[in-house]
């Protein structure tokens, strides 16, 4: 028997919707269940079958936990004419390493992001527009290659090292291993905090700050007592995402040769296994841990402010935000700290270009400008197949995304039924759920039972699951754009339609969609780009059948090939350059369409 509460909710839903919309909603729920909820549930349930005290004990020992820690924090070497200092951090085992890196990166990225956002939102200074544009550059997604650039600059025999030798300072610095990962991820992820905080700051009602000033608060006190608390939701959302992205990042650990982190352990295990039975229970538990810590973060942030509401209030220009001229100390901070910081964070993107257009880059300076790598791309069957696959998967995904996002955003914002909040959660949470956990969940669920050998079995045919996973993981960008659009459509416009005799879905198609069409399109463009650059599920599922692998898997293969990786780095950089161009075009178009600052929560 169906419990009465469920019956009542379904009844209310069907009453407020109509048949076509109910069917669309069912389709959306089916996809979310099949690609998100059930796979994640099987991921969490899977260890129950193979777990034992031995496994638990094993997880507290090497390589999962290393106590006492291995290696050195800092190594210093006397090389006669100079002293070399190598900053590296100790290896504490897979689980502590991952958490320490994620935590450090979150703290650093939050500090930098809040500082840059505050300066950019509240001060008027020459170059402010430039600062805002430059601080978007680090957000351009450059899968894997960015981390190799960071390694090139700070790592063994890196540019920093050579520059210090050249200046003959008497000592030289290298940042490698875990310290390097923290540095590289901080460079990559702080703009996420920046964008979310900026959006929140621009949204703070200026009169609230004016009132505080009127009461005598100013300077840091004003910031600490009013401005920061009011923008805390944005800060928290950004910090939460950084934590999750850091945990599942593969690029920096690969570039800085850190094997013992959760993300690499999971990928190594899947790539190496030919069927599901070969997966060790420990790996499944690691993916579960990843998922649980991400969910805890997500719930904590959600408690504070829903990501959805968040997207809705990103609508600049309604108020004139408060802007002041900086005093001398602030000028110094802006030009000597903030600007250099932003330019510094652009180095990976610039480095990608250097790799893509140079013949070789072994020493400090690259040599030989060339377009050969791009010519080579056109002849490389792996690249061509990867690009074709990515375009196909992304196109399928985007079609689904438009349908699902519009349906869910509409239902959530217009239908008053208990439980609609769950839909909202489903639609926005994929942004914050580690793709590696989703991927592993999919592998576990669809390689057993009735699915084994079917068209869904990822070991023979990962294509379907990749496209579906894209549609779930990258849908939130469109969902948020649609929410924002619906927010601006007065509900009376729809009621007038129904009052004139039009059904819900007719109102949706003749009134709502024409009014928010541009929002849907802008969101879809952004989602498309992020499908094209999706990493986690692409690599895990793509590895199961390379013929069906998307372009990000090809990049991964090229940067990890060869001893220590990086054998085809120039070629990978050329692919990534194309992807960057695609992103710039898409972001420009969608920003132009939406006419407001659109916070990209993800990278």
């Amino acid at each position, binding site marked *: 028997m169906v419990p009465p509460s469920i019956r009542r909710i379904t009844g209310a839903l069907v*009453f407020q919707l*109509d048949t076509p919309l109910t069917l669309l909603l069912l389709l959306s729920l089916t996809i979310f269940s099949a690609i998100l909820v059930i796979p994640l549930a099987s991921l969490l349930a899977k260890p129950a079958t193979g777990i034992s005290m031995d496994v638990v004990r094993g997880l507290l020992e090497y390589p999962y936990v290393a106590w006492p820690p291995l290696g050195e924090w800092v190594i210093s070497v006397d090389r006669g004419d100079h002293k070399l200092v190598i900053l590296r951090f100790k290896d504490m085992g897979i689980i502590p390493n991952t958490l320490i890196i994620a935590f450090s990166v979150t703290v650093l990225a939050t500090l930098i992001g809040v500082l840059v956002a505050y300066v950019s939102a509240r001060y008027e200074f020459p170059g402010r527009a430039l600062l805002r544009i430059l601080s978007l550059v680090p957000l351009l997604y450059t899968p894997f290659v960015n981390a190799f650039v960071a390694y090139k600059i700070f790592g063994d025999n890196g540019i920093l090292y050579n520059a210090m030798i050249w200046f003959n300072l008497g000592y030289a610095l290298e940042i490698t291993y875990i310290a390097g990962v923290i540095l590289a991820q901080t460079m990559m992820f702080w703009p996420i905090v920046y964008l979310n905080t900026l959006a929140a700051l621009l949204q703070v009602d200026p009169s609230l700050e004016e009132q505080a000033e009127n009461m005598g608060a100013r300077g840091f006190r004003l910031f600490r007592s009013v401005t920061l608390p009011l923008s805390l939701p944005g800060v928290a959302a950004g910090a939460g995402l950084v934590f999750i992205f850091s945990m599942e990042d593969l690029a920096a650990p690969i570039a800085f040769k850190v094997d013992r982190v959760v993300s690499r352990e999971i990928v190594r295990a899947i790539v190496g296994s030919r069927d599901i039975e070969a997966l060790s229970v420990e790996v499944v538990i690691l993916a579960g841990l990843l998922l649980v810590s991400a969910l805890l973060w997500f719930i904590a942030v959600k408690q504070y402010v829903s990501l959805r509401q968040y997207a809705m209030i990103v609508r600049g220009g309604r108020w004139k935000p408060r802007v002041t001229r900086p005093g001398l100390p602030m000028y110094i901070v802006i030009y000597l700290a903030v600007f250099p910081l932003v330019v510094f964070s652009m180095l990976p993107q610039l480095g990608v270009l250097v790799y893509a257009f140079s013949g070789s880059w072994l020493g400090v300076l690259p040599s030989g400008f060339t377009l050969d790598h791009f010519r080579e791309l056109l002849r490389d069957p792996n690249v061509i197949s990867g690009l074709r696959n990515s375009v196909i998967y992304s196109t399928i995904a985007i079609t689904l995304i438009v349908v699902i996002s519009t349906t869910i955003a509409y239902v959530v914002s217009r239908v008053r039924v208990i439980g609609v909040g769950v839909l909202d959660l489903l639609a926005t949470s994929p942004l914050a759920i580690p793709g590696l956990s989703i991927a592993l969940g999919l592998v576990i669920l669809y390689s057993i039972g009735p699915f084994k050998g079917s068209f869904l079995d990822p070991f023979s045919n990962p294509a379907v699951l990749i496209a579906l996973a894209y549609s779930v993981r990258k849908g939130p960008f469109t969902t948020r754009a649609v929410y924002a659009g619906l927010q601006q459509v*007065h509900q*009376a*416009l729809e*009621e*007038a*339609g*129904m*009052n*004139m*005799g*039009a*059904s819900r879905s*007719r109102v949706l198609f*003749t*009134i709502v969609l*024409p*009014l928010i069409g541009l929002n849907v399109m802008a969101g879809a463009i952004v989602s498309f780009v992020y499908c094209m650059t999706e990493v986690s599920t692409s690599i895990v599922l793509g590895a199961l059948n390379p013929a069906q692998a998307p372009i990000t898997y090809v990049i991964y293969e090229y940067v990890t090939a060869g001893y220590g990786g990086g054998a085809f780095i120039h070629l990978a950089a050329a692919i990534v350059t194309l992807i960057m161009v695609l992103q710039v075009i898409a972001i420009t178009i969608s920003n132009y369409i939406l006419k407001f600052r659109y916070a990209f929560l993800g990278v």
Partner: protein
Amino acid sequence: MAEVRLEGVSKYFGRFKALDRVSFTVKPGEIFTLLGPSGCGKTTTLRVIAGFEIPEEGRVYIDGVDVTFKKPYERNTAMVFQNYALWPHMTVFDNIAYGLKVRGYSREEIRKRVSWALELLGLKGLENRYPLQLSGGQQQRVALARAIVVEPKVLLFDEPLSNLDARLRIRVREEIVLLQRKLRITTIYVTHDQEEAMSISDRIAVMDRGRIVQIGTPWEVYSNPANVFIATFMGRSNVLEGVVVGREANGLYIVDINGLRVYGTSRESLGEGDRVKVVIRNEDAELLEEDRTSPNVVEGKVVRASLIGFAIQARLLLDNGEIIAIYLKNKTTINEGEKLRIYISPEDVKIYKSLETVEV
């Protein structure tokens, strides 16, 4: 012409009871107004009739058919929204034609009917404009045209004049009445403006805190308010507190207000010693030029006089220390400090037992 009937309709928003057992019958072809202050439930009542809200209790009938659980698009009501709700992406023509298209009329028929509505509302020549290119008054008419063109069983107006300026408001409300007389569509009209309500309605239902507190013709409601709330809501009045001290053979009660004795009437039956509220409308005070002493003649000193257009409003300090406001129509100047003698007919002194609303 359809009859609309509500039976014991209650609606909750969370724990808040927005409607409390609302019942009334709107006769076919009449203009029935729901009047009350903001938050009294009048718009919710209208939305229940339109189908945008489903009540937790009670039934709604249109033309004898139970529509309580019918969807908005199955009811054939037509609503004129407070903000007009014109679709900004459609021309005037398309806005008006929408309901006809939904009903599956032929192109030719749609053209004919829209053109009839355009003619009727004086919108000819504007059919290709977009709503944003129209003035507020024109938008209002388009909303009205869109509503009547589908030949609804019931026309619903949700404060349709509140976005117009004061002069336009009076003109448009007269037009609405004339149009309704011509088409004879049963009409339910929501407003918080008692003057608007009295001028357009066949009957008025006054609402307070989710309940209907009085139903009647404008004159019935105005001249014989069911309770103190209505008495003070319809027009301007003074509320004084007193104690019943006696009853005359002709049915008039005698009330002592802080030492001042007045004669008045009551809808309720009162006993000696009852604490009561005495309501006197500002315009019901008559200025006495001659020296006369009789019941309900009181003297007072003008503490404040101000011109309000058709009259002078004077605030009088009575001998018993109370201050009342009165309108003086045939006087050009009044000096503050001047002594005045006024008479209030016992018919115009309304006595109520308490502030509590009474069931109707």
